[in-house]
């Protein structure tokens, strides 16, 4: 072991924040997305594992879920990407006014999703206690609903935060950008779940 130290450079000029993979928040969000992606992937595997043993899907005499509520939600959740991208871009150019407006829009835009989600549970045509098919349908919808709730909670807190003095801190803009990234994960994962809940039971004989 060498004694003493040799000064080799100075870090004082470095910035104190960065977007995307330069930011620790991004790595945290990616980590949680992978964890939750695994939850989804394994639930999908469970879905197919149960499906594989059945003669018909859904098991007779059950009817597949009704399409209306879920399809409306799908359209609406895709539309939320418009304000979401708007917020992300605004955050990355530190446009506080736009971020504030966008976050308010986004917080409001999620509310109709919850209403539709309520109707979705009602349109599954099966209870979780009926059989494993019902259990796995409810599981998929429930897992996704928890993501809606948590991201909405995040967005509400962030909205409140951006209206305080803390909204001016550079790292809050990073947080806003990463929150928008997480929302993309929420709707992307929904597209797959939508297929599994509503369309696979219709496609299979």
């Amino acid at each position, binding site marked *: 072991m060498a004694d003493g130290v040799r000064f080799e450079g100075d870090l004082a000029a470095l910035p104190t924040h960065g977007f995307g993979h330069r930011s620790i928040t991004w790595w945290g969000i990616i980590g949680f997305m992978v964890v939750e992606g695994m939850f989804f*992937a394994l639930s999908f*595997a469970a879905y197919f594992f149960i499906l*594989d043993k059945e003669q018909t899907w859904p098991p007779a005499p059950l009817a597949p879920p009704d399409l209306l509520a879920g399809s409306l939600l799908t359209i609406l959740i895709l539309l939320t990407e418009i304000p979401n991208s708007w917020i992300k871009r605004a955050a990355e150019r530190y446009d506080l006014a736009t971020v504030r407006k966008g976050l308010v829009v986004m917080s409001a835009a999620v509310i109709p999703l919850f209403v539709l989600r309520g109707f979705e549970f009602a349109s599954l045509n099966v209870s979780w206690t009926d059989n494993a098919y019902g259990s796995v349908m409810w599981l998929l919808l429930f897992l996704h609903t928890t993501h809606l709730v948590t991201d909405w909670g995040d967005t509400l807190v962030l909205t409140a935060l951006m209206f305080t003095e803390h909204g001016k801190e550079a790292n809050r803009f990073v947080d806003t950008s990463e929150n928008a990234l997480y929302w993309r994960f929420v709707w992307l994962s929904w597209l797959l779940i939508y297929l599994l809940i509503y369309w696979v039971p219709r496609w*299979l004989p």
Partner: protein
Amino acid sequence: MLCLLLLPEAALAHAGHDHAEAPGWTLAPSVTLPLAITLLLYGVGFARLWARARRGRRAMRRDALLFGLGWLVLTASLVSPLHEAGERSFTVHMIEHELIMLVATLLLATAGAGSMLLWGLPAAARRAFGRLVHARSIAAGWGALSSPWVATALQAAALWLWHAPALFDRALASEGWHVAQHLSFIVTSLLFWWTIARADARGSAGVAAFCLLITACVGAALGGLMALSSSPWYAGYAAMGMTPLGLTPEEDQQLAGLIMWIPGGIVHMGAALVILYRWLKPGEERHAVSAE
């Protein structure tokens, strides 16, 4: 090469399309023509560039070898009796798909054949193509497609969707759908391997390795479900009864799933390890000598 092209003629003379007989060669123009044109374009482009190249002929030779191998594997899987045998056994069909998606397109993508094929075009067509590619909307679309994430998603979607019973049975029943199936496998896996190779070359080795990991999982999940399933998914194969390999339809499907799962996973893992190795190699010697 020429004798290879002549061989099928001879084979065709003997083999019919009756399932009781040995599987024959597939010489539908929808398959052979594109293959032949690709080879022709590459040959012309190679000759033109070879004449112009001052340096880098070694790399060109290596690329041409990779391309030639990839083309051969692709042609062999699509044209040889393997293809027809695949219509009677899911396992053989899976081997054909795996050869296409794991071997042929990997070789073709690493051969970096794009510029050669472009140079194979007549000059006017080449310039028109150049203008087209640089058009703003096309460039943007291409930019999105060439992301390894998008390519991974596309390939995964192609893999899963085509294995949905309705679609797979359709591909079994009609030659047109079958060509569409193979074409989408070729295009998506070519795109996948190409973006992986490019990401690796541009220093995004982590992204490349991660996408390989996801792809391995996507294939493993599908293959695993097949391997563990005890009921045949596809009416087309189930109706045929015992396969020529002496397997029941469900065993045939299990074996197909295992081939997708385990050798498929090993190829993706191997690719990820190769990427990682190349990335670890520099700096390896830079250890301090022990201060004792």
